[in-house]
């Protein structure tokens, strides 16, 4: 009976929460702009609609273009199932699978294939978007690796699951959490770095890459993006929870509920920020991301000196 909960939580995490998060973000964003907005469940209908539509594929593409969304989604599923982003923990024998380097490489693998697919179409915008996405992820990865590495060094284990189950220095948690907010805004193409709803191809980053996708492909890509958002927001929320002393001694169900509430609230905060902030100039993005790098480095410095 005790082992059934993590299973149920994982299924809910992968099937319901990601698209719900997308819906909540869009709803809050609409409310910020004085619109009523689409219903919260609209992303589910969208994915269902895209899945039933036929797709248009350019004659110039190779197998990479059709395979990339499938690879991306399977990798995202794997990462979403293995990593404790929702506050629910898998049984102990899976703990070793939540290694931080596995997380980094899984996310990078999915991203690599989406960039390949963008370049495979041979369209100018695809190449432009892929090049920008590669530049951003080059600057985001040090933030994530250093920040989560500092966390794991402090907890004395490379597994996120064991690290989150134990005690973490609140200062390190605060610094890493703030760095992860900056990293997630850039990695998930949210507003200070990229505008996810823009219609101008020249300013797009992520949207330019998926311009050529339609039908089933597009549905898979939307779903992948939703799961990736959940992983990033969830990990950030869990890191911030370690600043509060009482949260990791709670009942597992309560802990899971708190984790999911945290993810959804994080989404609301992101949507709120999108309502009041403007997009950075492309040249200023490295400047913004360096703050994240330095916060991670400070966390790492504290982690190294406290050993």
């Amino acid at each position, binding site marked *: 009976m005790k082992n059934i909960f993590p299973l149920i939580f994982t299924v809910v995490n992968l099937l319901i929460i990601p698209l719900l998060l997308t819906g909540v973000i869009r709803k809050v964003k609409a409310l910020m702009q004085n619109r009523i907005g689409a219903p919260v469940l609209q992303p589910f209908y969208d994915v269902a609609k895209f899945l039933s539509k036929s797709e248009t594929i350019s004659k110039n593409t190779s197998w990479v273009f059709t395979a990339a969304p499938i690879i991306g989604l399977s990798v995202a599923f794997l990462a979403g199932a293995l990593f404790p982003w929702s506050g629910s923990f898998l049984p102990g024998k899976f703990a070793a699978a939540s290694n931080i380097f596995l997380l980094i490489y899984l996310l990078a693998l999915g991203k690599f294939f989406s960039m390949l697919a963008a370049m495979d179409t041979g369209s100018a915008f695809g190449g432009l978007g892929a090049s920008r996405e590669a530049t951003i992820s080059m600057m985001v990865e040090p933030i994530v690796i250093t920040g989560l590495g500092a966390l794991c060094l402090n907890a004395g284990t490379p597994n996120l699951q064991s690290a989150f189950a134990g005690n973490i220095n609140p200062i390190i948690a605060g610094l890493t959490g703030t760095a992860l907010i900056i990293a997630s805004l850039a990695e998930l193409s949210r507003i200070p770095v990229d505008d996810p709803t823009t219609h101008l191809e020249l300013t797009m980053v992520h949207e330019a890459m998926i311009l050529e996708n339609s039908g089933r492909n597009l549905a898979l890509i939307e779903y992948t993006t939703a799961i990736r958002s959940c992983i990033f927001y969830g990990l950030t929320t869990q890191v911030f929870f370690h600043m509060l002393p009482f949260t990791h001694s709670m009942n597992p169900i309560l802990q899971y509920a708190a984790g999911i509430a945290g993810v959804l609230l994080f989404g609301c905060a992101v949507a709120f920020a999108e309502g009041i902030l403007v997009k950075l100039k492309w040249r200023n993005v490295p*400047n913004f991301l360096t*703050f994240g*790098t*330095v916060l991670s480095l*400070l966390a790492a410095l504290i982690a190294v000196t406290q050993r």
Partner: protein
Amino acid sequence: MNLSQIDFLAAAAAATAVMMCGITGIQTQFRFLALQTALFSGICLLEGFSSHGQHMAQFIILAAVVLIVKAAGIPLFLMWAANKMSIIRDKGNTASPPVTLIMAFGAIAAGYFLIPQFAVYSAGNPVSAGMAVALLFIGMIFMVTRRLAISQVTGFLIIENGIFLYGLTQAKGMPHLVEMAVVFEALIAVLIAGLVILRINRNFEHIDVTQMRGLRH
């Protein structure tokens, strides 16, 4: 190693100095400067508590003076001056803000690892000594890499904060009258520098230090 509360506040102040190196908005820089200095008045109070009430009144007066003069007065004056000259951003001169950020982080790491080697151990708080020296380095980096003359004043104030921190945490038994005099000295220095920069701005219509070399001719 366990950080005492004083060390923690000193490290937080050094971290605000690092963040200042990456910020280009002049007004935001002054807000961070105010925050950094307010942390020092917190350190004053903690020092007072750790002296077991011996000189509590002196420490409270020093903390109040630091809070009013250095954390509120000086940043407000600089904000007024920046407004009057209608300058908004300082994008850096020799090194761009991201590079400066990384350099400032290097200064903190150097301060942390090197300074306890030759700090006065008997005084305690070796981390604070390291952070004080890191603040000196960061202030110098800030002065060298910024373009506007008003940023030189900000850099000077960071250096001043470092010296103040060292005096406060390492030199036990130093008369607080001296510390207080230093605070007012900094106020006068900033007032004079600010007014001179205002005059320069009025006469030459810019305060760009890279072009000031040409002013001799």
